[in-house]
């Protein structure tokens, strides 16, 4: 069960890759798909490993991603 979640606002992303590179647990990868502006946004490849540390959120220059920690009551869910 993941300890945290990450939310990606695909349309805001400019594909810099900071979030992918600096996620401590390698949760993310740049997807091969394009957003409407032609950038490759990240997607979750290892959702289980997300700690919700929000480092991706702090790095993102475009405010396109953020993570949060699961509460005890929260069960596993997909990171969307």
């Amino acid at each position, binding site marked *: 069960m993941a300890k945290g979640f990450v*939310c990606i606002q695909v349309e805001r992303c400019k594909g810099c890759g*900071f979030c992918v*590179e600096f996620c401590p647990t390698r949760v993310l990868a740049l997807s091969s798909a394009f957003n409407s502006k032609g950038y490759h946004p990240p997607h979750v490849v290892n959702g289980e490993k997300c700690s919700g540390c929000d480092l991706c959120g*702090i*790095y*993102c*220059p475009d*405010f396109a991603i*953020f993570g949060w920690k699961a509460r005890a009551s929260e069960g596993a869910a997909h990171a969307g």
Partner: protein
Amino acid sequence: MTAVVETPVINPVEPFLRMDRMPHIWCPGCGIGTTVNCFARALIESKADPEKLAVVSGIGCTGRVAGYLHVDSFHTTHGRAIPFATGLKLANPSLQVVVYSGDGDLFAIGGNHLIHAARRNIDLKVICVNNFIYAMTGGQTAPTTPEPATTTTAPYGSYEPAFNLPYLTESAGATYVARWTTYHVRQLTRSIVEMLQKKGFCLIEVLSPCPTLYQRRNRLGDALETMKYYKERSKTRHGAPTSEVGLTMQGDIVVGKFVDRDRPDYLESMRRRLAEQLGDKFAGVGVLA
């Protein structure tokens, strides 16, 4: 049992940003957005009242920061953010006044204002985004451009010595001086929180990629490669003598908090002097008639 996921509805930084102005103008991988992200998080952490905080920017890519922050914000003229902020702060001392601008704006055209504000110890919190170049105007030489980087106005490479910003700022009298890079997001955020709690003239230099103009022209790779360079070559040395923290092109980067000292700020000195001299006749420095 149904799993309940309490998704925060929005990115925590959104209340501090003018979301109606997004997307911002900065290029993919531009570090300015990362610094703004850290700034917004520092506001959250420090529980600063956004209604009592004003951000003043000069002109440049970094100068656009003021316009994206959801606080009272002033996009002034090139180089003059500090004197504008000085007037604003003195008129309303209860405001937390942050100056957010580029290295050219603050240290070239605005350099004289910066050293005098530091000398007077005006209570201003300065964030200087150093991308080693004049970005807004297309990549000309800045006072921070390291030898022998090329710029559009130094096509054969720069041969001017660059300013060491922390050294200059400390010498002029600042009470708090630190340097981080956009790689050091947590440290930068903490440093901003700390600076917001200080009184007097404070400055944080943040090295930041300008992939479009500086890195590309100098074949230094993209923004991500720059971030990796920051990660690999930065050495944290709190309290390092600022005379030793000068930067070279792609060399080691000393980061950390270099100066943290206290001395009376401008208003305090003014009040004390006038009260001493005028006694009961002193009517105070409040300007709201």
